[in-house]
């Protein structure tokens, strides 16, 4: 098994040249017209206004193209795209239970490989994608995801992280950040909301030694497209962590969904990076982080943190965000020398 894993997870291909060094938003204007024209996640689905998740799904499938099979766990993306008798999907798509998107994706990938080996299917590059929200990834489906990564299936797992169980009514999940108010971690006189820190999903996946892990954000569409291309080319499992604003659950004005994504990167809350064969590279280095309050202020779920009573907690969160970002910078600098 160990010898086999070596061949499936170690990328033999030379590393691709990074598109830009520095700001990934640099090329936005004309290069955006060079994204693929065809959409596979069609308009007219039932996402809320300002849903950054739906935007990310659309962009991801634009880039992955037609030869793609998708298995989606229960969650917003399933609810909004497939309410009977309609579908937003123009590619083979399958809704599976909450916990097993990664397992079903693994099965599809293994099945395709066997059919191609037996000659029952023409040899063709078919991208298998398993998708789940943060609940389906970090909480309920973590076991299946870990299995998929460990077995080394050549497929992509996409996690849409909107930091709570949004479609069932904003319950807290493993990735809800410290201090956020949700319906099951309400802020009030006795609590400041969520009591635990965000589960580090990209780090957990990277620890499996897979060839490609990246955090993406639909506020940086070209950076997202580039990372999806790399995930597709990876010689083994790839994990994409999509940081997606949810105006409904975050108590955020829908027109600020893109702006909040940029703010999340510029304040250091959700840095953009990729880990290729264990080497980390920041794709949007932010030498000077903006103050955290700029990110918290527009969001109703953090409103209580801005009051005088919670000044200490706010300082703790700010310090932790800065420390985590400094650690990423340190690791990126170290890996660049390797």
């Amino acid at each position, binding site marked *: 098994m160990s010898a086999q894993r070596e061949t499936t997870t170690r990328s033999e291909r030379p590393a691709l040249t990074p598109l830009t060094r*520095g700001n990934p938003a*640099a090329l936005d204007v004309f290069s955006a017209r*060079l994204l693929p*024209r065809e959409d596979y996640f069609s308009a007219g689905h039932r996402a809320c206004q300002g849903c950054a998740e739906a935007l990310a799904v659309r962009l991801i499938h634009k880039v992955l193209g*037609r030869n793609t099979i998708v298995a989606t766990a229960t969650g917003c993306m399933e609810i909004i795209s497939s309410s009977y008798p309609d579908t937003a999907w123009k590619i083979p798509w399958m809704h599976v239970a909450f916990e097993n998107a990664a397992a079903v994706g693994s099965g599809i990938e293994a099945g395709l490989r066997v059919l191609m080996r037996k000659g029952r299917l023409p040899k063709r590059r078919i991208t298998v994608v398993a998708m789940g929200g943060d609940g389906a990834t970090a909480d309920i489906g973590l076991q299946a995801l870990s299995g998929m990564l460990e077995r080394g299936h050549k497929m992509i797992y996409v996690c849409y992280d909107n930091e709570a169980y949004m479609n069932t009514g904003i319950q807290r999940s493993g990735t809800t950040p410290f201090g956020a108010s949700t319906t099951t971690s309400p802020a009030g006189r006795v609590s400041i909301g969520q009591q635990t820190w965000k589960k580090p999903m990209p780090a957990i996946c990277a620890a499996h030694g897979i060839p490609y892990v990246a955090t993406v954000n639909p506020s940086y569409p070209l950076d997202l497209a580039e990372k999806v291309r790399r995930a597709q080319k990876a010689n083994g499992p790839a994990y994409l962590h999509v940081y997606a604003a949810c105006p409904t659950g975050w108590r955020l004005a829908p027109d600020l969904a893109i702006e909040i994504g940029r703010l999340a990167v510029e304040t250091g809350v959700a840095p953009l990076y990729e880990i290729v064969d264990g080497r980390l590279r920041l794709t949007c280095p932010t030498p000077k982080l903006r103050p955290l309050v700029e990110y918290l202020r527009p969001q109703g779920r953090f409103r209580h943190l801005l009051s005088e009573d919670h000044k200490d907690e706010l300082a703790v969160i700010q310090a932790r965000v800065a420390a985590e970002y400094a650690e990423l910078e340190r690791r990126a600098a170290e890996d660049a020398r390797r």
Partner: protein
Amino acid sequence: MSEQHPFGAPVTFRIGGRPYEGTYGDSLLETLHRYGYEVPSLCHHEAVSAYGACRLCLVEVVDKRGRHKITTSCNFPVQAGIDVLLDTPDVVRHRRVVLELLLAMAPRSPELRALAAEHDVPGGRLEPDESAEDCILCGLCERVCREVVGANAIAMSARGTAKRMTTPYDAENPACIACGACVYVCPTRCIGLEEADGKRTILRWGRTLPLAVCQQTGRAFTPQFLLEHYAKKLGGLDEKVFRKAPPYR
């Protein structure tokens, strides 16, 4: 009788013997991609016109009289009654030779080497041109600059072995707005963009422009020149709009 069809009329044709619907005059390569067939290509982009430079998208087309010919599919129109054969032994052989030639032009490009490895091309039969700029003369940057951006800053210069993609007289061209679309589209990533000290440089064209700083974030976001270009193109828009980076406007 494809002659009787006007451009844009629906026609039936075959891919590997199986019937498919297409549109007369459409790019065969784009139609193949739309039906999920994999044909490698470096010089084609759906946003710009076909050029047929990289020769990787070779297919074998059998016309109605049964004549076979090998052709590039990007600039071959879909027409009624043809049969398109992919990956026939001839096509595979030709494509390998093309890849070897391309590798000699751009020996350092990881993207090209990855593609060559996929097609079992070891490389090395031809002497790699060490002085090469890793450019394969696909012309994609020039077409994007002309058709998408409308800046016309770069063009092919000279002929034969001296042929190069460059700016006029190899000098910094004031027509270049440093938008970076050529950097984005280049299949071998040989153009390069660098941002440092509030300036952006397109490395290959030697164009350096100062960057505008966003009023909201205090971060350099786009060349000042480019903002003036938009303001002129859009006309009548409040110039305050351009003082902030896009999502903060």
